[in-house]
């Protein structure tokens, strides 16, 4: 009984900040001390889709950056995960730790250094520049997940497929990839969400010209239109929640998550 009430308490607290968000997004002039607004409105949600609020623009930019970042980090993370998960080689632990530095070390100094080059390359304030810096946090997470997936992967299946006459490409597409697919889903989920939610890196390198959803939200937050802020905040949560639902099966895959427990 005590156990159950503690769990319920935690869940209530976790959901609590969403309550004022939802109310605000439909509220018209919700002044203190009203517990519930006197008047309801759809105006904030309509404002969201109007081009002046730049929310649709932010949504599309966020989506493009997150998708490209996810694909690139997957391409880079798969071989690295395989090497760390399956093979033994000198310097493995050091390289693994090195790959993790971007998520443990503050990126601020690095960002100021990168900006110096990006300005000279004309990449400051471009989508490409932002994707490049988004790879810093996504590659470590991707590698962590895939390392742990490969560590639990039996290479005997590949050996057998090869001995039965499959080409290396056939082995990859028909044996390896289907077997590690759930792990790939978890890794891609993490990478997508990290990029989608990223604020600081975009803030520095985007130079106000790359306008992702977090940038829209940050700008609106300075303005003080709580209704619109709440509507944008809810909008930016939707893909994350969708992904969580879709991947809830994959998230129970402990081999994929175990990687975080053993950095």
């Amino acid at each position, binding site marked *: 009984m005590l*156990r159950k009430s503690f*769990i319920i308490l*935690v*869940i209530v607290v*976790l959901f609590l*900040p969403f309550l*004022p968000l939802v109310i*605000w997004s439909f509220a018209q002039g919700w002044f*203190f*001390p009203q*517990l519930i607004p006197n008047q309801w409105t759809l105006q904030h949600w309509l404002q969201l889709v109007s081009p002046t609020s730049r929310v649709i623009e932010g949504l599309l930019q966020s989506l493009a950056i997150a998708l490209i970042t996810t694909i690139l980090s997957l391409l*880079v*993370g798969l*071989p690295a995960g*395989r*090497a760390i998960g399956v*093979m*033994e*080689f000198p310097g*493995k632990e050091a*390289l693994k730790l090195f790959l993790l*530095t*971007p998520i*443990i*070390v*503050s990126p*601020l*100094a*690095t*960002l*100021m*250094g*990168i900006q*110096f080059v990006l300005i000279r390359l004309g990449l400051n304030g471009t989508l490409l520049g932002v994707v490049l810096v988004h*790879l810093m946090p996504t590659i470590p997470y991707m590698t962590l997940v895939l390392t742990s997936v490969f560590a639990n992967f*039996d*290479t*005997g299946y590949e*050996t*057998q*497929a090869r001995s039965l006459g499959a080409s290396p490409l056939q082995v990859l597409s*028909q044996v390896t990839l289907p077997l590690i697919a759930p792990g790939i889903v978890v890794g891609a989920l993490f990478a997508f969400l990290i990029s989608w939610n990223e*604020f*600081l890196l975009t803030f520095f390198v985007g130079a106000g010209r790359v306008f992702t959803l*977090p940038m829209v*939200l940050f700008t609106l*937050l300075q303005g003080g239109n709580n209704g619109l802020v*709440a509507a944008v*905040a*809810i909008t*930016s949560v939707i893909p*994350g929640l969708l*992904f*969580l639902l879709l991947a*809830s099966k994959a998230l129970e895959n402990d081999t994929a998550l*175990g990687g*975080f*427990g*053993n*950095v």
Partner: protein
Amino acid sequence: MIFVKLQPASQHHPAPSLTQPFPWQAYLLMLPAVGVVGLVFGGGLVLALLQSVGAIGLLGERQISLTAYQAALTNPEFLRSLSLSLYIAVVATGLSTLISIGLALLLRTAGRWASFACQITLPIPHLVGIVGVLLLLSPSGFISRSLYALGWIQSDQDFPLLVNDTANMGVLLHFLWKEVPFITLILLAVLRSINPAYEMQAQILGATPWQRFWNVTLPMMRTGILSSSLIVFGYIFASFEVPFLLGSTRPRTLPVLVYRAFTDSDITRRAEAIALGIILSVLSLLMIVAYSWLVSRGGQKRQFTKDA
């Protein structure tokens, strides 16, 4: 197509020919990831370092000196910012780790829906959490309104300041809200991988529930606790937007101080900002070293107890 496992024990005794190829193959596979991280992160850090000592400048000027570091370290705000950053990171990480251990142990026997509900804040951007916390905890926020409706407070003046307050309550609560589900998720995965036979054995041998937890379960969770709290500590210590929007205006955390110096209208303060950023990075690097030391020490200790 059905594949039969050729070597069931191949994970423990890899066949030298295929599962353990020449190391250069492993290095080749590592190259893209190490290359990108090295080039972007490492390269950025090196460039920042060069800028901070004046070896390269935005306008092409060159004068090597350590004045930027002197300015950074003698900045009257530096020590206060550093201790504020450490205070927030230590308290938030410590509390979330403790709560997560308890929650993970409870969720272990609870149903799927409970575990799922406890993951709700995982995919939520920090910025959205910040907005939620502001609308919930500010003097005219939802909790304040609820207390007013209950008659516990007479005006918003009676409500304690929980955002942008000197104790940084809003920042700490936000991080707890966001990081408890993260650590819990990892610890749950660790707990599920533990062989329950050890705990049963302890119970059979007469261990109390507390002894069973302290001597059996907790040691097996150790690595998971250490690595998840390291990730969380590093993240909170370097976090910018949360203390920027929810934290105290003075003192400011180290990342906020760096940002303010970097965007100062006085462009000569840039080198100082970069020097501050480098100091911040070095501090985080030291944490990784301390962590590796902790883990290796733990490994030796375990080894010892096994032998004894």
